[in-house]
C-alpha cells in the first residue's frame, strides 16, 4: 500500500543544513496500523507532510521514494496530488482548535471535500456529511451540521476533522498526534473511534505520536524515530517485549508503571539533539548509556525480516544489559 524508501527532508537555513528527516524507510500494508513514535523534533511530522507535498517552505529539499499503491507520489505537482489528498489519503491534524476554517460551517467544509472528490450533487453531499457526523459520534448531526467550528469543543472538533478525513473513503489515513491536544477521556474515545472506523472502511492508518500508550493501544507495527532517523522498526508486541535499541528502552522505561515501588521516573539523560548539528555517527550516542567506540559510525538498520534496529549492540550484549536493568528496577 505505502512504501517509503530513504526519505530525506532537509532545509537550507542560515545556520547550515537542517536535516529534519534522514533516511526513513518503512512499509504500510493493507488494513495495517503503523505507529511512528519519537520525541518532539524527531522529524515524524515533517516526514509525513513532505510525502503529501504539504511542506511549503521554499528552502526544502526532499529526496527518496514514496510509493503509494505502486505509484510514485514524491515530487508530484499540486495538481497531480489533488485527487490523492483527501481522496485516497486522508489526514488528521494535531490541533483541532485551528484545523478548521473559522468562517464556514462544519457542514460546508465537509461538503466541500465530498464534492471535490466524489462529485455528488449538493443535497446528496449534505446528506453524506450528516451521516459522517453521526458516525463519528457527534450528537444531533442534523442541526450541528450548520454550526461553526468555534461552537464545538476540542474533542468534537477533532471528530469533525476525522469525519472530513474519512469522508471520501480513503485507503490510507494519516493521523498526526490526533489526541495530543485532548484530555485523557476524550483521547480514549477518539482512539476507539478510529479503530472502529478503520474496521468499517478497511483503511490503513499511519499514526504519529510521542505517547507510547497510544502506540500500545493502536499500532500493529511501530517505527521509532530519533533525530530524523528510524532507530527501530518492529511489530508492536515484539517492540514492547523485546526492544532492541537503547532509545526504545528509554521510551518504554519512561512510562510510569502502577506496580513499581516508589521510585524516580526514568528519564533519558541529556537533551534532544539539534537537527542542525547531527553527530557523524549514531545520533543517539551522546545520550546513550551503552555507547561504544563503534558508535562513531552510523549504524545501519538491520535485523530480522520484520524487526530491525539501528544499533551496534549485539544480541548477547542486549540480553545482559536488559537483565541487569530489570534486576535493579
Amino acid at each position, binding site marked *: 500500500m505505502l512504501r517509503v524508501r530513504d526519505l530525506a*527532508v532537509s*532545509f537550507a*537555513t542560515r*545556520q547550515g543544513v*537542517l536535516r*529534519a528527516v534522514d533516511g526513513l524507510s518503512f512499509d504500510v500494508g493493507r488494513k495495517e496500523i503503523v505507529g511512528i513514535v519519537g520525541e*518532539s*523534533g524527531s*522529524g515524524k*511530522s*515533517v516526514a509525513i*507532510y*513532505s510525502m503529501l507535498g*504539504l*511542506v*511549503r*517552505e521554499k528552502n*526544502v529539499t526532499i529526496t527518496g521514494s514514496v510509493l503509494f499503491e505502486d505509484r510514485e507520489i514524491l515530487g508530484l505537482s499540486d495538481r497531480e496530488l489533488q485527487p490523492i489528498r483527501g481522496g485516497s489519503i486522508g489526514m488528521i491534524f494535531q490541533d483541532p482548535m485551528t484545523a478548521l476554517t473559522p468562517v464556514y460551517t462544519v457542514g460546508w467544509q465537509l461538503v466541500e471535500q465530498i464534492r471535490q472528490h466524489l462529485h455528488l450533487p449538493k443535497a446528496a453531499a449534505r446528506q453524506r456529511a450528516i451521516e459522517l457526523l453521526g458516525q463519528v459520534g457527534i450528537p444531533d448531526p442534523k442541526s450541528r451540521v450548520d454550526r461553526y467550528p468555534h461552537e464545538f469543543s476540542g474533542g468534537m472538533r477533532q471528530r469533525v476533522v476525522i469525519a472530513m478525513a474519512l469522508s471520501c473513503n480513503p485507503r490510507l489515513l494519516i493521523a498526526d498526534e490526533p489526541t495530543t491536544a485532548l484530555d485523557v477521556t476524550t483521547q480514549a474515545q477518539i482512539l476507539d473511534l478510529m479503530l472502529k472506523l478503520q474496521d468499517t472502511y478497511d483503511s490503513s492508518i499511519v499514526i504519529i505520536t510521542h505517547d507510547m500508550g497510544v502506540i500500545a493501544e493502536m499500532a500493529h507495527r511501530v517505527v521509532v524515530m530519533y533525530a530524523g532517523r528510524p532507530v527501530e522498526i518492529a511489530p508492536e508486541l515484539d517492540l514492547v517485549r523485546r526492544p532492541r535499541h537503547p532509545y526504545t528502552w528509554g521510551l518504554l522505561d519512561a512510562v510510569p508503571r502502577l506496580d513499581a515501588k516508589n521510585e524516580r521516573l526514568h528519564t533519558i539523560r*541529556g*537533551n534532544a*539533539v*539539534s*537537527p*542542525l*548539528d547531527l*553527530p*557523524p*555517527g549514531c545520533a543517539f*550516542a*551522546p545520550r546513550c548509556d551503552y*555507547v561504544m567506540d563503534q*558508535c*562513531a559510525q552510523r549504524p545501519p538498520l538491520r535485523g530480522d525480516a520484520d524487526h530491525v534496529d539501528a544499533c551496534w549492540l549485539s544480541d548477547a550484549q542486549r540480553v545482559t544489559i536488559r537483565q541487569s536493568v530489570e534486576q535493579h528496577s
Partner: protein
Amino acid sequence: MGEVVATEEHSTIDLTGNGVTTARGPESPWRSSLRQLRRNKAAVAAFGVIVFIVTACLLAPVYAHGIAHENPFASNLNGTIRLGHKTVNVLQANTQGLGLGVTPIGPTWHFSTYFLGADSQGRDVFARLLYGGRTSLYIGFVSAVICCVVAALLGLFSGYFGGAIDWLISRLFDIVWAFPIYLLAISLSVVLLTSGINVLFIHLQPGSLFLPILIIAAVFVPYVGRPIRGLVMSLKQREFIQAAIGAGASDWRILRKEVLPNVMPSIIVFFPLMVAFNMLTESALSFLSIGVQPPAASWGTIINDGLNLLYTRPWVAMAPGIMIVITAGALNVLGDGFRDAFDPKAKLRGSI
C-alpha cells in the same frame, strides 16, 4: 508544517575526540532582531536615504551662507545673480501673454546658486527646500516622539490597571479618534494658531513650532495608544506576569521590568511610521496655511508658495513634494523592516 527548529543555544558533547563543536551562547532577542534588520537590504537602503536627507537639511545654513551666499528668508525682488558671464534678474519681466508682471527664474541647475530657481519673492528655492526640510523633519520627529511616549504611557496604564482609569482613557481615545483626523487637527490649528496656548505651565507663542507639534501628536495618540493598550491587556493574561504578581512584585516593578520590555518592540515599529504620518499631516496643515507660519518655512508651506507658479515654474511646488514622497517612503520602508525584525505580528495600517 515542518518543524523548523532554529536553535539559538545548544552544545554538543565531544565523544569521538574529533574536536569539539563550539557552543553558542543564547542570543538576546534584541541582538537577533538587529541582525535581521541589518540583513534587510531595503531597510538599510531606506535608512541611508533618511540619514542623507537629514544631514543635507541640517547643513542648510552651511549651504545658504557658505555656498550660495544668500539669505533664503529675505525677499529678493530686485536681486540679481551671475550665471556664467551674464548678470540675470531673479525676477524677470514677462514677455508672453499680456506682458504684465514678473516671473521668477527657473532652475539654473548650477549648484552654487538658485539651483531650482526662485519663488515669487525671489528667494532661492533650493536653499529654502533645505531649511524647510529641517522644519518638517523636526516637527515630524518630535511630534512622533511625543505621540509615542504619551500613547505608550496611556496604553500601559489603561491596559494594566483597568477599571476606572481604563474607562477614562478609552473614552478619551474614542473621542479624539472619532473626529476625522484632519478635521480635528485643522480645527485646533485654526483656533490655537492665532492665540497660542497659555494654559497651566504651557506657554506657547502663536508662531511657535510646538503648536503644530503638539496638535499633530495629540491627534495621533489614539492610533498608537489603542494597540498598545490591547497588547498590555493580553500580556497581563500571560503567565510570566501572573507569576510576577504572585511573587509579590509591586505594580511599578512589573510595569518597568516585565511589561515595558515587551511593549517596546511594538513602539519601535510604530515610530518610523508615525514620523511619516506626522510629516504628511504637517505638510497638509502648512499647505492650508494653518501649520507652520511664516517666516518659518516647511515643505508644506513651500508647496503652498509654489501654487501660483504651478504652471509657469512648476519646480517650486514639485520639489518639496518629491522630497516628502522620498522621505515618507523611506520611513515606510524602514517601518516595514522594523516590523519584520521586531514584531512580525503587528497589524499596521498603511496610512491615516
